């Protein structure tokens, strides 16, 4: 299924996403639609665990394009993100040429020409993403861009502007069909404005209660509707408690899975206490919830779970 159909609509995107087990709200759906329709990179920011990275995976499943992931970190450079030469093989090649006496026969220029050929080129994520492929264009996920250095961001800006990469020894690689690009950031620092300008931007929020129930139902189908609603309600309460790390959708799914695995069909004080580790990742947060009262939490979740059920 080629995604860049000129007749693609926001609705198509919404349907395709849910067919691939991802329930997005209207804002995110529109942003993804625009990224596909305008062939622009999409920068997703938001709290950890709201499903930013998942967007790229879903797009890859939907379009059938290969998912190419570039995990950014401090100090990442061109040789890790774009390309490198396979120096060990180059050295072997040189030794072989020398041993066979070929090195004396031909000049240094010829020898050098032999070394810097595509077969000695190690393509890293960015170069792979713009190299022509037979199938649908790949989905390039540039994860946690805020961890990379400014210098790398500047380089990325260049790549995302023209979808071309120059390897000095070989020439220019250009994408015949640009990949779908998703960038994510946790906002540990501001991504440079120039890069943001190049991208579409969406701030991913925690889902609403009803949507979160739907997500749990979709992702953890074997737990009861009642439990799904109670878990979503409890998580909603937890997010309002000023925790160090408010639980994300990923934690909601983990929690529902854990409770389901324990064979429960509804929340109870003891099961919440036993499984709190699936949702809360700081000792201080666990203490705060216990101060707030686990019984209260369960009671609220019951009330919320029953409303409109």
């Amino acid at each position, binding site marked *: 299924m080629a995604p860049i159909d000129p007749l693609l609509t*926001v609705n198509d995107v919404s349907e395709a996403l849910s067919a691939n087990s991802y329930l997005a709200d209207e804002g995110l759906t*529109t942003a993804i639609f625009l990224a596909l329709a305008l062939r622009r990179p999409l920068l997703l920011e938001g709290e950890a665990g709201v499903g930013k990275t998942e967007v790229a995976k879903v797009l890859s499943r939907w379009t059938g394009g290969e998912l190419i992931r570039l995990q950014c970190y401090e100090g990442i450079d061109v040789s890790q993100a774009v390309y490198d030469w396979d120096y060990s093989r*180059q050295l072997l090649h040189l*030794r072989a040429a020398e041993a066979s006496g070929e090195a004396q026969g031909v000049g240094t220029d010829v020898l050098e020409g032999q070394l810097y050929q595509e077969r000695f080129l190690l393509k890293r994520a960015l170069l792979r993403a713009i190299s022509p492929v037979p199938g649908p264009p790949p989905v390039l996920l540039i994860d946690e861009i805020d961890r990379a250095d400014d210098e790398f961001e500047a380089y990325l800006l260049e790549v995302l502007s023209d979808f071309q990469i120059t390897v000095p020894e070989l020439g220019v690689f250009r994408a015949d069909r640009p990949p779908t690009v998703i960038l994510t950031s946790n906002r540990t620092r501001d991504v440079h404005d120039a890069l943001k300008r190049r991208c579409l931007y969406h701030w991913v929020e925690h889902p609403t209660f009803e949507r979160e129930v739907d997500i749990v139902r979709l992702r953890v189908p074997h737990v009861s509707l009642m439990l799904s609603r109670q878990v979503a309600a409890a998580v909603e309460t937890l997010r309002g408690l000023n925790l160090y790390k408010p639980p994300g959708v990923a934690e909601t799914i983990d929690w529902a899975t854990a409770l389901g695995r324990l064979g429960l069909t509804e929340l109870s004080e003891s099961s919440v206490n036993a499984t709190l580790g699936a949702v809360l990742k700081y000792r201080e947060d666990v203490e705060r919830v216990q101060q707030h009262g686990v019984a209260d939490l369960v009671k609220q979740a019951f009330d919320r779970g029953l409303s409109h059920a």
Partner: protein
Amino acid sequence: MDSSPTDAESLATAFARVLRGLGLSVPIGCVLTFTEALGATGIHDRDSVYWASRATLVRRPEDIALFDRAFAVFWEHRHGTGDDSVTEEPLRIVIEMDDGEGDDDSSDDASAPSDDPTIQLRFSAAEVLRHKDFGAYSDDELRLAHTLMSRLRFVGPPRRSLRLTQSKRNQHRPDLRRTVRASLRAGGEPVRRYWREPGERMRRLVLLLDVSGSMEPYARALLRFVQAAVAGRQRVEAFAMGTRLTRVTKELASRDPDKALRLASNRVSDWSGGTRLGECLRRFNDEWGVRGMARGAIVVVLSDGWDRGDPQLLAEQMQRLQRITHDLVWVNPLKVTPGYAPLARGMAAALPYVDHFVEGHSVAAMEELARVISGVSSRTQEAQHA
């Protein structure tokens, strides 16, 4: 709908003008993208236009609230329904002079849901919203700032970078790229081998300046110091702490100190108001610090430690901060006072988590601070990473 000009281009430019009028930065490239996006979504459905504009024109979550208001007004106006329901909620500003012991209620502070973003528009009783022009500086202070600027540039203890640089010594990390190049010159024989080693890079420096009323005599000079640091060195972040936390890095980054201070003073609206150190630190930790900004960084708090909030919260947040920083420095202008003991509740609560406790009342003290930042001896106990 009937009277609307129904033209994506005019809609886009008109809305961009509205946003610029409100102070949002809207580069022309974004307007073009917005126009293009409208071509894909159409311009008649409110939600489509809203999301298309948000995806193309907004680039920071802080701007979303302002953007939403602007969009609501723009859309209503454009469709001439004249619906008054979208008028802005007026800002309620409570000005109240120091009410002494009145708000020493500490227990409820932590549990109040105070990080609701809208709460920023409702001010606590103790906050005095005064707008101060702190651009007027004496020549002495100006000279001080310049001295410090040169001192602060390129200082701070380095940390190992993942990036490898050329090395003279055998480091067990061969530099194959250069080795190949060299052996090519030697006709294929790797005669000379090259090595690489990890480079070094500067640690991030984070400055948190208390701008409350009690800091008034010092805050201007200290802000000057902060500005010098931001303008003179890479990887510096600056925040103002009053009743709320304000990031002023961008405002202070201008190399023209007067302009930088003016911009920062415009940004900080709770200048010389009350202090809620614990709450500000919590916001810093939640929104910036723990996410990465303070990890492995040198964090400098410039404050006299007078805090109206809950000392327990402050202690908790200081501990949290200390666990992720490389060094935590507290600069207290009152420290030099004869017979000074850290009796301010906030100071006493924070002190156990401070690696360096230094003075901050004079030029000499600021030079000392610059020295501390440059040569910070890293804490002796093993760094615990949260």
